[in-house]
């Protein structure tokens, strides 16, 4: 367990409660009210949108081909069938996956679901027809074709064998739509809902709430337990905390800051249950290497040296949704660096006096002693602005004066893309833990379009490619270390901050749901029941 140094997924029942939560038999019935901590999403179409607001509003209506195991969602490698009958073994040297589709599945309109529906939905995700968009097309680069040889079978043929395929296939947005509807009007699902999931769509009050009722024909025996659900859009945090306090809503599925947890536990005691987990999201402090003096690695290293990760993480974890010091890889993954490995990199030093003296020396050498710059951030409180406040204070300890400039989402992206910033609080937040793909974030823009550091680096790309094609687990881990050390220590292309912590506070009568490292998965409510 040494490798999984920071990995935690704990179920903390407030106070002394020793309820054997898992041993109980689920009760049927009841309406479940939860909040979606966002404003209304642009559309209800999972294939086209990229915001959790769409997912948290529509996941209960749809089925997917496979999913992260809802009974073991904290695992990064445990995938189970939703619509298929069993998880296939790849053939053809790992390049072909053949799925058999269940025969007992019906869409909410009563028509049966067949492999043809699954195949076409996936074809639209992987290779959307002209004029149709697919938000996650780029995640599916390894897929060559999706075929439907008979009404029970779907075959995925890959361009190259990769362990990144199954996690990508478990994408929670990959809803299975009805073939006929999709072919007739690919935009139909933007404004309408028709799936085969545990709940049937009943109402959408635009911008306010979405409601569903139990699907009596659901194919997973016994599920869902609830009669129905109401999801309310509630963008402001104080409202959400108050609503849980007054039992106007049971929970929210994104994650609350520690202050909210403390308030609710203090107020409600064992009437609320807290689950916490490391979260597959992290903020990165990325210098723009096209701007002076950030083109100088000495300056970048100085900025990294100034930050006391080890003292910062536990302190910040009391006030912000962050927790675990880590490198490029999600701390729960076997590929993640251990503490000993991290400390070898200058950015993770434990001797801060020495590190900061070194930082000042580096700044002097680079001729940037009185460095002043603007830290660009996004208009999100948790934890973005907390990270910025902390980093700015840490930098002040080596004489660097940074100010914070906050932009709404649109202008923020524009500034990133056009390179009109000095240092940015970036973020890397993926649907599923898939470290091999997730760390691609630091690859130069010519390879990874969403990199904004403004550098070209053939050596970094080479290190990545050798790691990606490595099949031996131990060797792959070593190569990951080399890649990570080069990016974070040799080049200091970006500065890590503590990985996020997901804190879910729910009324204790919510049962059956388990936390995962992603706020995108395990959201279809099929396993939730109310102990009232």
């Amino acid at each position, binding site marked *: 367990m040494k490798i999984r140094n920071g990995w935690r997924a704990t179920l903390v029942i407030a106070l002394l409660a020793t309820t054997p939560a898992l041993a109980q038999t689920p009760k049927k019935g009841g309406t479940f009210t939860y909040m979606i901590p966002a404003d209304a999403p642009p559309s209800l179409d999972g294939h086209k949108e990229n915001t959790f607001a769409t997912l948290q509003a529509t996941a209960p209506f749809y089925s997917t081909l496979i999913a992260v195991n809802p009974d073991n969602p904290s695992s990064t490698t445990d995938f189970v069938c939703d619509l298929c009958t069993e998880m296939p073994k790849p053939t053809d040297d790992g390049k072909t996956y053949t799925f058999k589709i269940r025969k007992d599945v019906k869409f909410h309109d009563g028509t049966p679901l067949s492999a043809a529906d699954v195949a076409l939905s996936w074809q639209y995700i992987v290779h959307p027809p002209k004029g149709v968009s697919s938000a996650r097309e780029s995640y599916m680069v390894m897929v060559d074709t999706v075929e439907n040889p008979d009404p029970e079978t779907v075959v995925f043929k890959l361009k190259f064998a990769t362990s990144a395929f199954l996690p990508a296939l478990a994408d929670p947005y990959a809803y299975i739509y009805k073939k006929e509807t999709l072919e007739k009007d690919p935009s139909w699902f933007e404004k309408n809902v028709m799936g085969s999931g545990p709940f049937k769509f009943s109402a959408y009050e635009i911008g306010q709430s979405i409601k569903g009722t139990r699907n009596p024909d659901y194919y997973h025996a016994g599920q869902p337990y609830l009669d129905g659900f109401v999801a309310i859009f509630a963008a402001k945090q104080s409202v959400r905390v108050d609503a849980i306090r007054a039992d106007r809503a049971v929970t929210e599925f994104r994650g609350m800051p520690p202050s909210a947890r403390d308030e609710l536990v203090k107020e409600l005691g064992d009437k609320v249950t807290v689950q916490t987990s490391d979260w597959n999201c992290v903020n990165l402090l990325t210098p723009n290497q096209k701007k002076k003096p950030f083109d100088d690695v000495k300056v970048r290293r100085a900025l990294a040296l100034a930050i006391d990760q080890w003292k910062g993480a536990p302190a910040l974890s*009391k006030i912000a949704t962050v927790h675990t010091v880590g490198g490029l890889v999600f701390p729960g993954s076997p590929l993640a660096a251990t503490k000993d490995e991290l400390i070898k990199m200058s950015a993770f030093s434990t001797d801060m006096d020495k590190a900061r003296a070194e930082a000042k020396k580096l700044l002097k050498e680079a001729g940037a002693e009185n460095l002043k710059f603007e830290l660009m951030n996004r208009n999100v409180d948790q934890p973005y*602005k907390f990270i910025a406040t902390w980093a700015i204070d840490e930098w002040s300890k080596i004489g660097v004066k940074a100010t914070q400039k906050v932009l*709404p989402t649109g202008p923020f992206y524009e500034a990133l893309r056009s390179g009109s910033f000095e240092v940015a609080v970036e973020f890397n937040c993926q649907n599923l833990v898939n470290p091999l793909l997730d760390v691609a974030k630091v690859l130069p823009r010519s390879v990874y379009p969403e990199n904004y550091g403004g550098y070209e680096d053939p050596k970094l790309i080479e290190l990545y490619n050798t790691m990606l094609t490595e099949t031996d687990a131990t060797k792959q881990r070593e190569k990951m270390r080399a890649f990570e050390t080069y990016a974070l220590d040799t080049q200091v292309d970006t500065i890590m901050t503590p990985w996020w912590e997901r804190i879910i506070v729910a009324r204790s009568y919510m049962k059956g749901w388990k936390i995962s490292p992603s706020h995108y998965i395990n959201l279809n409510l099929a396993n939730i029941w109310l102990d009232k």
Partner: protein
Amino acid sequence: MTVAADHPITLRRRRWLDAALTFVRRQPLGTVGLVVVIVAALAGLSAEWIAPYNPTSNDFAVMTEPPSAAHWLGTDQFGRDLLSRIIYGARTALIIGFVSAFVGGFAGLVLGVGSAYFGGLIDLALQRVMDILMAFPLIIMALAVVAIFGTGVQNVIIAITVPLIPRCARVVRASALSIREVPYIDAARTCGFGHVRIILRHMVPNVVAPFLIMLTAFVGQAILAEASLSYLGLGVQEPVPAWGLMLQGGAEEYASTAPWIAIFPGLAIALTVFGFSLFGDALRDAIDPKLRER
């Protein structure tokens, strides 16, 4: 008379004092307001000397501590001393308040007086522009300005100032219009005085009273507008000590677990705006003879 000739300065001082005493006696609320304003101004001006701690340096050993002997108003999430942040915050608040009020006020003064003096097409055109700015929802314009330029004290000031201009121009124009047709302005015109001289010597002094009253109101409004922007996440940003920012963070996350984080900045805003409003009201009552006590 001989006294005046011998001691003109003493008398002037005494007159000033008399006026001040009268103000205190007649306007007890206004005096309270003035005191609050003066306290805030002194805090803002002398922050470096009176603040017990550095307002921006984090101290993880004392996060969210309640008021104590070491930290009179407690500490915030980052272990920063709240009293020090509030004292420095007075500076930020007054800079935003005064700069917005003065820039907005003077632009409004120039446009209002100009519009009234020149009349005709210029007036018509200027009034339409003012109409547009008046009718445009303020907070939306502020949001757009911040989205375009980004946050930062000067951008926040721009966002707050623009909507103040037409409101000032309106009032000034109305006051100026009422005296435009007064005979002495005509007389000045026939004497061949230039526009600038007539405006500066004759019209401006006559609109000074409503203008000053409005300025005091604007300072308070600007401080409140910054707080509203902060609530939407687009006001002044960390680590700058600013009341609106402190209140937003405190109110959203700590209103019930660590209430001092929200209460003190909230009080600072409310008291200061309160002070400016009371003072402004009293000033109006004192200047406007119609409202003087029977």
